[in-house]
């Protein structure tokens, strides 16, 4: 049984949209996520699940409440500090891959690590190859990112999210554009990461099947948590 290390904590998150009319998207939301957890956020469209994810991601700072990532309160950080925090602690996977089309897959994976500057270029390249191998793309490494299929591109973007060994990987509809086969591959990789790498995955999804197979599912309705389901008892 694993120890329960809190990796992310959200306290009383409230957020309003002002355009076209003032509208409360998130209503005093609080929850906690643990190390090695595969957490999914579900809810109808407009329930605020993506909005919540972007608040957690530190990219959206226009909310009230507190967010702690790995014990660090993010509210007080400046935008450059938040950028650094994202660089070393958070990996992102979106519905669209957002790979840089001019660069090879390998380079795309390497860029966040080059930005971090923890390793030298040779080590980074080695690590990028490792990550691509985990995702079964080692042989595609030197191809331009734009030449790959959709499923492959999405896997490259996952490798990119993993390169700095972030504590948390945040996903917004990671399988939204994928066929069943690729969805299965991505799911298996995520499962593996949480179990072996002790990394936390927080994924917004409307794929019910995908959510059911995650460790825990939080359901949002109109900006409030309406249900928390433990699908597997991996956590104590």
């Amino acid at each position, binding site marked *: 049984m694993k120890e329960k290390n809190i990796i992310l904590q959200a306290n009383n998150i409230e957020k309003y949209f002002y355009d076209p009319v003032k509208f409360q998207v998130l209503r005093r939301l609080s929850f906690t996520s643990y190390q090695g957890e595969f957490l999914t956020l579900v809810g109808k469209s407009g329930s605020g699940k*993506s909005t919540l994810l*972007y608040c957690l*991601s530190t*990219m*959206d700072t226009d909310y009230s409440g507190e967010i702690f990532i790995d014990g660090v309160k993010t509210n007080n950080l400046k*935008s*450059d500090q938040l*950028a*650094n*925090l*994202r*660089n*070393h602690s958070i990996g*992102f996977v*979106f519905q*669209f891959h*957002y*790979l*840089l*089309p*001019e*660069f090879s897959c390998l380079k795309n994976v390497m*860029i*966040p690590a*080059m*930005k*971090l*500057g923890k390793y030298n270029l040779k080590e980074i390249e080695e690590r990028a190859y490792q990550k691509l191998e985990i995702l079964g793309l080692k042989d595609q490494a030197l191809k331009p990112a734009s030449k790959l299929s959709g499923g492959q591109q999405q896997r490259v973007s996952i490798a*990119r999210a993993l390169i700095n060994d972030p504590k948390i990987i945040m996903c*917004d509809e990671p399988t939204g554009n994928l066929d069943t086969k690729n969805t299965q591959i991505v799911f298996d990789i995520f499962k593996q990461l949480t179990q072996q790498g002790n990394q936390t995955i927080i994924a917004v999804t409307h794929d019910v099947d995908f959510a059911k197979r995650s460790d825990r599912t939080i359901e949002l309705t109109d900006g409030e948590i309406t249900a928390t389901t433990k699908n597997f008892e991996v956590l104590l």
Partner: protein
Amino acid sequence: MKNTNLEIAFTHIITRKRQTLVAALGVLVGVGIYLFMNSLSAGFSDFSRDEIFKNSAHIKIFKDDQISVPFYQSKDKNELAIINNPQILAENKTLLNPSVLLKNVLNEPYITNAVMQVDFSAFYNKGTAQVKGTSNGVDILAYSDMYNTAKYMVAGSINDLPGNLNGIIIGSGIASKLSLGLNDNLVVSSSLGITKTMKIVGIFKTGSSTSDNQRSFVNIATAQQFLKQNPSYVSTVFANTPDPDKSKDFAKRLQQITAYKVEDWTVTNADLVAGDKTRSTMMGAISLSILLVASFGIYNILSATISQKINDIAILKAIGFTGGDVIKIFVVEALIMGIIGTIAGLIFGGILIFIMQNVYMGGPVGYFPITFEPQIFATSAVLGILITLCAGYFPAKKAANVDPVSIFRK
């Protein structure tokens, strides 16, 4: 890491060669034209300044006219004022002890040449034909050192003048009007009624018609005779300095060693100096606007790039690139376009200058007076890069302010 920003910028540039070239082409034209026009203007200014210095010195020392003062001035309003008519004194215009003054002037470290000069209005006569002009009594050898007169001699030699009290060197215009040649006799009279028969020992042609049609050179002693003055009479001392642009300061320093009026060439030729300034300001303004227009090319292309790359910018910001990093990436791109364009522009401008150097303008100008001036090249390079930096900064700032969430949520 900075290298990452550079690598991204370089990759963008390489994968978008066409846009880069178009932007660089804009800068090329801007920098090239800027360089060319300013070289034109500088070349012409140098030329017209040289024209001034053909006939006038950097510094002139002379006895200024003095206004008479009343013998008695009223001390307050209850006293009657003496009515008088202040006017310039009918004093002798001679400088006292001119040779000592000349020696003192020459002793100053910043004076390269100096000559004494006695001028008089002369009438050149042959038979009944008469030409009016000015004759300069000078030590012709020292004078030639200063104004390069020897270079303009078309007949005879300046060496034949010193010691020959009846010798005269005349302008080619006078010679042709009176149909005179070397060793011919010429009757010269002054406004004071002195008439002498002179022998032509030389003819010069400077290309300036006023000079060629009116001037002549004689010995100082001869000029003094024409003016009915004693052998110590000298009206003016002219001096040259190493740098005409600094002659104002040199004139101030020179003023401290003499009581006579010291005037630099910018005062004597104020109209020409002002005209020159006007022309270079005009040229500068026009060429700078062309450079500015060119910078809009960079602005446009970078703005378009940024709109197209908005997804890339969003993901870069998500994975930890700061706003500053994004600015660096796009400013570096602008800088690369600017550097390529500036270097090509300098070459382009250089070619234009080279072509212009071989364009014959005719008259006293000859080939167009334009030269390769390193200073103008440097200014053009600095301006070209500076303007591209500014043109790149604003779109880059816009890119840095991209809100990644708004992109991802689309």
